[in-house]
Structures are given as C-alpha cells and as structure tokens.
C-alpha cells in the first residue's frame, strides 16, 4: 500500500555545533492520516519539522513526499510542493484583511489589478467549508486566535496543501475552539490531506489522531496506532522508560529524616496564571526538597515564575514568611529570601560576557557596595569561598562565564543565590544539559543545602531526580495539581501515572491539600 504513504522521512540526522539534535529520526504520514508527534523538550520534534519544511538542512537521511525524493532548501520550496505549516504564533499579516491573508501572493487578478470582489467571494467560500462566517474584509487582528488559525488553515487549503503541519495549535484555544479545530482536522482528513499534529495535551491526541510518533533524544522511539498505546505507555516512552523496568520503589539512598515536620516556608493555594496555570496548590517546608513534576506545558515553570514574582497571577494565594499575597516583582521576592535558577541558563541565567566573579555576585552586589562603590576585597573573598565550596572548575574568577562548561556555569548560578543566604531556592531543571559528573555533584549539593535547612522547590523532567532526590513530589497536569506523593509513594510508576491520567486513587496521598 505504498500509494497511501504521503510523506516518509527516514534516518534523518542533524547536529548543531557538534551536538546532535537529530539522529536516526523517522516518521511517515499517510494520505488522510492524522499523525501525533510528541516528545519532551529537546527531543527533536521541532528540528524534525524544520527539516521537513526546509527551514533547516538535514545532514543525513531521506525525505519522500508523494513518493518522490525531495530536498527542500527553503520553507517556500516546501510550501510550493504542498506542505503547509501552521505555527503556534500565527505567521500571517495581522493588519491586512482576512481575504488578503488567504490569498497572499496569489490574489485573483483582472486587467492586472486585484479583483477584490472575486477575492472576497472566494475567501467566503473557503471559510464556509469550515463553518466560519466572518467579514473577510476586516483586518485579521480583529479576530481571536482560533479564527486566525482557521484563516491560516484556509490559506493552506487554498494553496492546495496536501500535508498540514500544526505545531501546538491548541495551546491558546478554549475547549469550544478546540472542538471547532478538530472538526476542521476531520474535514482535512476526509479530503485525503495528511496532518502532523504536535501537542502536549495527551487527551487531545486520542480524540483526533490516528497514529503517534514518539521522539526522544533525537530519535524516533515509537510509532504505532493511537488506539494501541495507553497514556501511561506514552509518558513512559517520552521519558525513556519501559513499563516492565519501571522502578516500583524509590531509591533508598535518601534518608527520611522528617520525624517532625518543621515550619512551612512556602504555601501556594489555588494559583492561577493565564494561560497555562489553572489551579496549583503546593507547599515546601524548611529543609525539604519538593519536586515539581509534569509534562511539558503542564505549567511548572509558570508556577515557579509566579511564586518568584516574575509573572503576575490572576488568582490564588502565595504565602512566604510574612508575605501573604505574593510578590509583585522578582526584586521583592529576592529581598524576602527566594532564589530562582531559570531552566534556560543561556537566555535567563548567565551574562555571557561578564566575568565569573560578577556573574556570581550579580544579585548580591548591592550588599557589597558602600556609597555606590563595590568593595572588591569582600567580593573576591565571597567569590573565592563559593568557588571552593561548590568545586567550580575555572582558571580564574576573571574568566568570562561563557568559557565555562555547562555544569560549571550552572554551579556559578547556584552560587549566585547561595551567597544571598535564601530561605527558599527554586530550581528549574537544574541539571538539564549537564554532563553526568557535574550532575551528580549538583544533586548532592542540593541535598546538602536542604540538610542545612534550605527549602528547595525543584522542577525536573527526570524521573530519577524526582524519585531519588526529593522528599515529596508534586505533580501538575494541564496546569492543575493532580497529586502530591511522599518519598515512599513517589515511584516512577506513580509519578508517570499522575502525569498521564491525573488523580488516581492508588497513588494519591493528599492531592491538592
């Protein structure tokens, strides 16, 4: 049945600056088939899509579209061949009319001029197929995201697209709009158009997709009919666990020394931060490491940023020390004793051209200053002490931080907060992209800090880090707290179950307490 195969990509490899983003990635889409493409952050989904659409050149592998080997050099090539991509941020022209957007670059003409009447009629006709009825002469930005997406799809159909790639199309839609979108996808399917559907909302995949391709570490690790795989199996494959070998019990290395629960440092109730966080409850005690688990898009980072005062929540309470209403700025949160290591070291952590010394003391610097002048002797003393304590490997504290390895950079960022003597440290993926040795060092350092009384809230996508490195694990799913697991309960199986299904009698102790 090779006739039915619309697109096949096989053995795709691509590396950036020597780091492999894709190795042996593959996928196939049949005519009229809706394929779910899923994977954790950094699994290679977006690179694979970029290879398909010609935005990135592959280094190895083959792409066949409608049975013909193809090699798109630019996104325009792919578009001309019949592959349309609909991005999360819609890439249309917001100030031009709906009709103009649908016909951009191929406007119906008459006597060399645009035939507006015909263009508007045709635009109406295309949109009517999707039961969308709007004034096509209005500028696109007058309409909401869902409608704009419909316009983008209408444009794709108008271009005779035979494959439509949708990158997280539902992330900013409400339930009703999602239902409309799914109707449209079914129509595309009925016309024999193939769809690649990228989403992190697992439930949706079962509603609309026929087959699923799962990626991990740049490879395709599973490819099977949607109906034949359970949500738990999906999560396990994304995280790199087979259900048979999932550890039923947490590691024993972690001593449980909480006979008496010490004081609560942080208490969050009913937190809502649009658009990703709907209702999150969690608390952290003195000397406790609480893991925050959840799939990509479950609202973990958004929760952390709201606690830190970097984003403003719409509802809920955040209690920390004397503060009961939450912080309005990061400055306030830092002043109250919170530290926050962002998941994105490069764009939100290091100041690349600055020395290690200045990076390390970035937050502390005002305290090392008298009459506006930096006390360099004290700065040097503190920096030297922390470099030693954390075992940061460098040739000199004057070295630019960009020259350090990822692991050492991360240690400098940890030190940036440790020198502030915080009461609560929020770590977002503290060991991502770090070599194994540095990873172990950072993990044991976090434990040591907690033993000294520091409260830690740690976001992690690594099951081991959650089961072995945390006293408790709080699981989020679609922006909601769905489970809080004690160390003994927090097995890989239980965490994955909560991530996939939400509340489950067997694995909950006190969800949303």
């Amino acid at each position, binding site marked *: 049945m090779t006739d039915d195969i619309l697109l096949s990509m096989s053995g795709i490899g691509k590396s950036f600056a020597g780091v492999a983003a894709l190795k042996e990635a593959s996928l196939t889409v049949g005519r009229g088939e809706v394929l779910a493409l899923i994977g954790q952050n950094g699994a290679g989904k977006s690179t694979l899509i970029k290879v398909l659409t010609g935005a990135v050149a592959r280094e190895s592998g083959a792409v066949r579209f409608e049975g013909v080997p193809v090699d798109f050099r630019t996104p325009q090539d792919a578009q001309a061949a019949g592959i349309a991509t609909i991005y999360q941020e819609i890439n249309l022209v917001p100030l031009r009319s709906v009709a103009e957007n649908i016909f951009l670059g191929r406007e119906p003409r008459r006597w060399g001029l645009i035939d507006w009447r015909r263009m508007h009629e045709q635009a109406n006709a295309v949109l009517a197929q999707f039961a969308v009825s709007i004034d096509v002469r209005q500028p696109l930005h007058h309409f909401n995201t869902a409608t704009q997406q419909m316009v983008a799809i209408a444009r794709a159909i108008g271009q005779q697209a035979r494959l439509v790639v949708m990158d997280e199309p539902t992330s900013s839609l409400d339930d009703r709009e999602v239902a409309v979108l799914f109707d449209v996808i079914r129509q595309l399917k009925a016309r024999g158009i193939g769809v690649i559907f990228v989403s992190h909302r697992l439930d949706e995949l079962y509603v609309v997709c026929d087959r699923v391709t799962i990626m991990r570490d740049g490879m395709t690790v599973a490819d099977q009919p949607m109906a034949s795989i359970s949500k738990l199996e999906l999560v396990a494959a994304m995280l790199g666990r087979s259900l048979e070998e999932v550890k039923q019990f947490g590691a024993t290395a972690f001593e449980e020394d909480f006979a008496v629960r010490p004081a609560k440092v942080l208490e969050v109730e009913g937190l809502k931060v649009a658009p990703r966080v709907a209702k999150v409850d969690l608390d952290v005690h003195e000397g406790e490491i609480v893991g925050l688990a959840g799939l990509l898009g479950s609202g973990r980072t958004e929760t952390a940023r709201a606690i*830190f005062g*970097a984003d403003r929540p719409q509802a809920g309470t955040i209690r920390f020390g004397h503060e009961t209403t939450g912080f309005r700025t*990061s*400055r306030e*949160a*830092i*002043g109250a004793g919170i530290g*926050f290591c*962002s998941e994105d070291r490069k*764009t*939100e*952590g*290091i*100041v*690349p*051209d*600055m*020395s290690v*010394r*200045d990076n390390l003391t*970035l*937050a502390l*610097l*005002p305290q090392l*200053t008298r009459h*506006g*002048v*930096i006390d*360099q002797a004290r700065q040097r003393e503190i920096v030297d002490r922390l470099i030693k304590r954390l075992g940061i490997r460098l040739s*000199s504290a*004057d070295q630019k931080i960009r020259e350090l390895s990822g692991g050492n950079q991360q240690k400098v960022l940890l030190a*940036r907060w440790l020198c502030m003597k915080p009461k609560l440290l929020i770590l977002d993926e503290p060991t991502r992209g770090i070599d194994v040795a540095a990873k172990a060092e950072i993990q044991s350092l976090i434990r040591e800090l907690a033993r000294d009384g520091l409260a830690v809230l740690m976001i992690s996508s690594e099951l081991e880090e959650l089961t072995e490195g945390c006293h408790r694990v709080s699981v989020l799913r679609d922006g909601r707290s769905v489970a809080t697991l004690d160390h003994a309960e927090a097995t890989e199986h239980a965490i994955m179950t909560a991530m996939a299904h939400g509340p489950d009698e067997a694995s909950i102790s006190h969800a949303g307490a």
Partner: protein
Amino acid sequence: MQELEVAAPRRRRGLTWPWRGGPLAGALLALGILVLFNLIATPHFTSLQTLYVNLTQVTTIVIVAVGMTMVIATGGIDLSVGSLMAIAGALAPLIFAGRLFGMGPGLLADGLAFVLPVLAAMAFGTFNGWLVARFRIQPIVATLVLFIAGRGIAQVMTNGNLQAFHNASFYALGLGRVLGVPVQVWLMMAVVGAATWVMGRTLYGRQLLAVGGNEAAAQLSGLPVARIKIIVYAVSGLLSGIAGLIVIAINSSSDANLVGLGMELDAIAAVAVGGTALTGGRASIIGTLLGALIIQLLRYTLLSHGVPDAAALVVKATVILAAVYLQQVRRAS
C-alpha cells in the same frame, strides 16, 4: 621586577592594558600609524598649536561619545545627543543675556547659564530613558523623537537666529587655559576619568553591563532594570548639554541650526571604532577616547593635505569600516 609586581594585581582586577595586546591594541595601532604619518608628511605637526587645535575639536565628540558608550553598553542607542547640544547651546545665551529671567549680567547669571542648560538637557535625556524603560519603545525610535523635535525646540527658543555674545565666563570655557592646557580638555579628561571609574568600580557600572549583557537575567536577579536605563539616558543628555556649552563657548555664538549637527553619528562612530560592541554588555571608555582621537586626527590629516571635504568623508567612512572589521576579526579569533 618591581613593575611586574605592581602590574600583577591590576591584571587580576580584569583590566586589560592595550599595550599588552588587549582589545584596544588595534585602535592604538591605528592611532600610532596616523601620528607617524603626520610626523613624516605634515608640516608643523609637532607644534603645540596643532595639538591644541586637535584637542579642542575632539573634546565635544569625546564627551558625548562617553555617554553614548554607556547607552550602547545597555544595548541601546541615543540619536538625540546633537539636538540636546543645540538646546543647551540655545538656552545658555538666553540666560546670561537676561532674556529668559530678566536677570542682569553677573556671576549668578553666568552660573545659571552653565547649570540650567545642562540640567535641561539631562531632563530631556531622562525623557528618552522613560520612553525606553517604561514603554519599551526601541531606543532608536524613542531617541529619534528628540533628534527631530530637539533641534526644533532650540530653533523656536532663539527664533532661529544666530546669537553672538561676549561673555567672560564662556570665553574662559572656550579659550581659557589652566596650566597651559585648555579648560575644555581638563573637562574632557574629568569626564573620561569619572566614566572609567563608574564603569570599573561602581555598582551602577556593573549593573549597566549586566542589563546590556542579558536583560532577562538581570531582571531575574533583582536588578532595577528600568531605573538603570533611565539613568543612562539622563547621563547621556547631561554630557550632551556640557558639550553644547563648549561648542558655543568656542564660537562665542550660538546657532541652533548648527550646534551639535551630526554629532550622534560622530559619537557612534567613535564608540564603534573604540571597540564597544553595539549589541550591548560591553563598554570601553578608553577605547571610545581612542576612537574619537582617530576620527579627529584623520579629519585633520585629510584637511591639512588639501583633500576635498567630500572625498574626506568617504575616507573617514572607510577607516571606520576597517576599524570595526578588524575588531570583529579579533573577537572571532
């Protein structure tokens, strides 16, 4: 031996000296070549007269370019400097001539004629910073507002007339000397010294570089990003105001149409030639000083060899391009 021991701790503080092959080596080399060429080819180059002519002409560029360096270090740019010079230059004669406050000539009037125009330019600079920091308007657009409107304001204040004047205090600023060195050169050295100290030793300097180097990281580390930006544009305005006063003092007249005309481009060129990246996060005050000297000396060299103005501009642009290119190459290696 002794010198080595003194030098060692300096290196540890992160100062790189140009003659040790630091980032300024290229600029220093270019300056050296220019000086050498003039020593050989330009008559009377070694006279004190020549030195003063060049120094006098370079002071205003240096003073404005120092402020520009700091603005660029935050990842911004200030196009309004020339117009702010014109405003300060238009305001001062109005004050000491008594046309603004109806005040008789005297020391008080002269004092106010120095202070108020500079404060006015600083206030306009603060407005620039406010647009950039509070409304997140791109610096090139935000400062374009006063680039256009500022000169208009100066022209309205003076009805577009040239104001010629004789004022002892301004004469001293323009042509006076202390210990044989022009007053404005002392002023320039004070500005360069103060800025070097601020960037190297103070909290503000460090935070400025952090904002330019990674604004998101600075914000998440609790730095008052908006305040830092507003201050830097205010400082740029203040320095422009001082430069405006120097220009009218040298000319003993103020022409709102001409004071500071094209200064923004000279200042940006000095910063670029001096090795400060226009992407932010880095600042070399000494580099900017060298950059301004190179541009000035180049202009002088071409002029004294009778190269027509139009051709001189092309040569100037070529040298700027070459200097910036050399730094790119150095950085990449």
